[in-house]
C-alpha cells in the first residue's frame, strides 16, 4: 500500500504539490488525471524518488521512502516505472533491455537472465521481437517492452506516467489491453492518463488534481456521475472534445 501524507513540493518558488494526502490500496489501480500542469506526473514521480519532496511523507507498506538509511536504488527495484517516451536503451536489443536489470541488479549471468526475460516478453506478446532493436519496432511495441522491463524484477507497484500519450491512436489499444490484464492480475498500479475509457473500466479509484491539489479522490462511478464537482465535469468535457 502506498500512502501520501501531506506531501508538498516546490520547483524553486513555484509550489507544484500542495499537501496531498491519499492512499493506494494493495492490488488496486488508481488513475491520476487533471489538466496540464496539475502536478499529476510530478506526484507519480515522487513515489520512486525521481522527484524529491519538501514536506510530508510517502510510505510504501508502512516504510517511509525518505527515511535515513533507505537505499534509493533498492527502493526503485521494488517499483516499476513506465515513461511516456518509453526510454528504451537504443543500443541494446529488446531482449537485452529486459535482461539488463536482472544482470546488473540481481547479478544473473546472461544465460540465466535470457529465459526469464523471454518469458516476460511472451507475457507482453513480443517474444518474436526479442532480437530487434528499439528503432525497429513500433511505438506500441516499444511501450510493451518498457512495461516488460519495468516488471522483470517483480516489483510490488507499477507507476505509469502517461503510457499512451506518445502513441499513435491505433497503438493505444494494445498497451491499454496489457495494463488491463495487469490490473486484473492484482498488480498495484498508479497510472497518469487521459484515457477516460480506461479510467472508467479499469481503475478502482480516480484522483483528480488541479494546481497541485488533490481535488477529487473517489470511485470511477462517482467521477463520471453528473454529481461530480463542476471542475471535474468541465475537465471531462474538455477531454472528450479532444478524444
Amino acid at each position, binding site marked *: 500500500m502506498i500512502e501520501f501524507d501531506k506531501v508538498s513540493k516546490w520547483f524553486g518558488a513555484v509550489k507544484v504539490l500542495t499537501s496531498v494526502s491519499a492512499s493506494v490500496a494493495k492490488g488496486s489501480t488508481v488513475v491520476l488525471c487533471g489538466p496540464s500542469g496539475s502536478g499529476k506526473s510530478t506526484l507519480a514521480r515522487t513515489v*520512486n524518488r*525521481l522527484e524529491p519532496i519538501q514536506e510530508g511523507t510517502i510510505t510504501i507498506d508502512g516504510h517511509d521512502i525518505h527515511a535515513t538509511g533507505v537505499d534509493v*536504488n*533498492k*527502493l*526503485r*527495484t521494488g*517499483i516499476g*516505472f513506465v*515513461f511516456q*517516451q518509453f*526510454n*528504451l*536503451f*537504443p*543500443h541494446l*536489443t529488446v531482449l537485452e533491455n529486459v535482461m*539488463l*536489470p536482472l544482470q*546488473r*541488479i540481481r547479478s544473473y549471468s546472461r544465460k540465466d537472465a535470457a529465459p526469464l526475460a523471454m518469458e516476460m516478453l511472451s507475457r507482453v506478446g513480443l517474444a518474436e521481437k526479442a532480437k530487434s*532493436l*528499439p*528503432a*525497429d519496432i513500433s511505438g506500441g511495441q516499444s511501450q510493451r517492452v518498457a512495461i516488460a*522491463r*519495468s516488471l522483470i*524484477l517483480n516489483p510490488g507497484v507499477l507507476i505509469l506516467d502517461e503510457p499512451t500519450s506518445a502513441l499513435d491512436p491505433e497503438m493505444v489499444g494494445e498497451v491499454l489491453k496489457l495494463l488491463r490484464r495487469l490490473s486484473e492480475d492484482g498488480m498495484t498500479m498508479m497510472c497518469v492518463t487521459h484515457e477516460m475509457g480506461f479510467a472508467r473500466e479499469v481503475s478502482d479509484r480516480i484522483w483528480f488534481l488541479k494546481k497541485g491539489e488533490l481535488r477529487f479522490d473517489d470511485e470511477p462511478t462517482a467521477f463520471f456521475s453528473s454529481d461530480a464537482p463542476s471542475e471535474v465535469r468541465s475537465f471531462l468535457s474538455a477531454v472528450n472534445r479532444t478524444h
Partner: protein
Amino acid sequence: MLEILHEYGLMLLIGEYPHGKLGGLALTLIISFVSLFATFPCSVVIALARTSQVTWLQKLATGFVHSVRAIPLLMLIFWAYFALPMLIGFPIDATVTLVVAIVIYQTAYLGEIIAAGINGLPKGQVEAAKALGLGYVPTTFRVILPQALFNVIPGIINQLTTIIKESSLGSIIAVSELSYVMLQVNSNEVTKPLQIFGILAATYFILCFCLSQATNWLERRIANKRTGRFFVEALA
C-alpha cells in the same frame, strides 16, 4: 621532386631504421596512435568528472580543461622536456616526452567532446536507468558511455588528425618524426626547400584528408542509423 623521393623515400617512411632509430612517417603514426589510445581513457575520466554531480570533482576537471586550453602545446612540450627532468632528477626520452605532452593536451579537448556526447543524450535515458534501480557504475558503463562514445566516434577520429599534425612539434625537441626527418633532408639538400617541404605538406595532407573523409562518412552513417541496426554491428 621524384629525385628526392627516390633518394630519401625510405627515410621519409621509416627514418634511419634499421641502422638507427625508427623515424619518419612510421614514427609519426606510432606517436599519433599511441597518443590517441592513451588519451582515450584519460578523456573518459575527465568527461565523467565534468558531467559529475559531485561538485569538487566537476570543478577540478573544469579547472584542468580550462588551464590546458589556455596554453600552447609547444609550451607544454618545453615544460615536459626541459623543466620536468630537473624536477624529477632524471632525463626522459624525447619521444616519451612528446607523447605525454600530447596526451595531457588532448585529454582536455577529447574530454570536452566526450562530455558533449554525454550531455547530448536524452535525459530519459538516465532517468530510465535510475527508475530501474541501476547504480552509478552500471548506468555509466551500460547505458551512458556506449551511446555517448558511439555518437562521438567522428569527433574522436577528428582528434586523431589534430594529433598527427601536433606530432610535428616533436621536431623541436629532436624526435625523428616526419617533420624532423624532412628538416634533416633539407639541411643535406640546401637548394630544394620547395620540393622537400612540398613533399612534407603532401604527406600530411594525404594522411589527414583521408581521415577527415572517413570522419564525414562515419558522421553520415551515424546520423542515418543512430538508432538502427548499425548500432549493434558497430559495437559487436
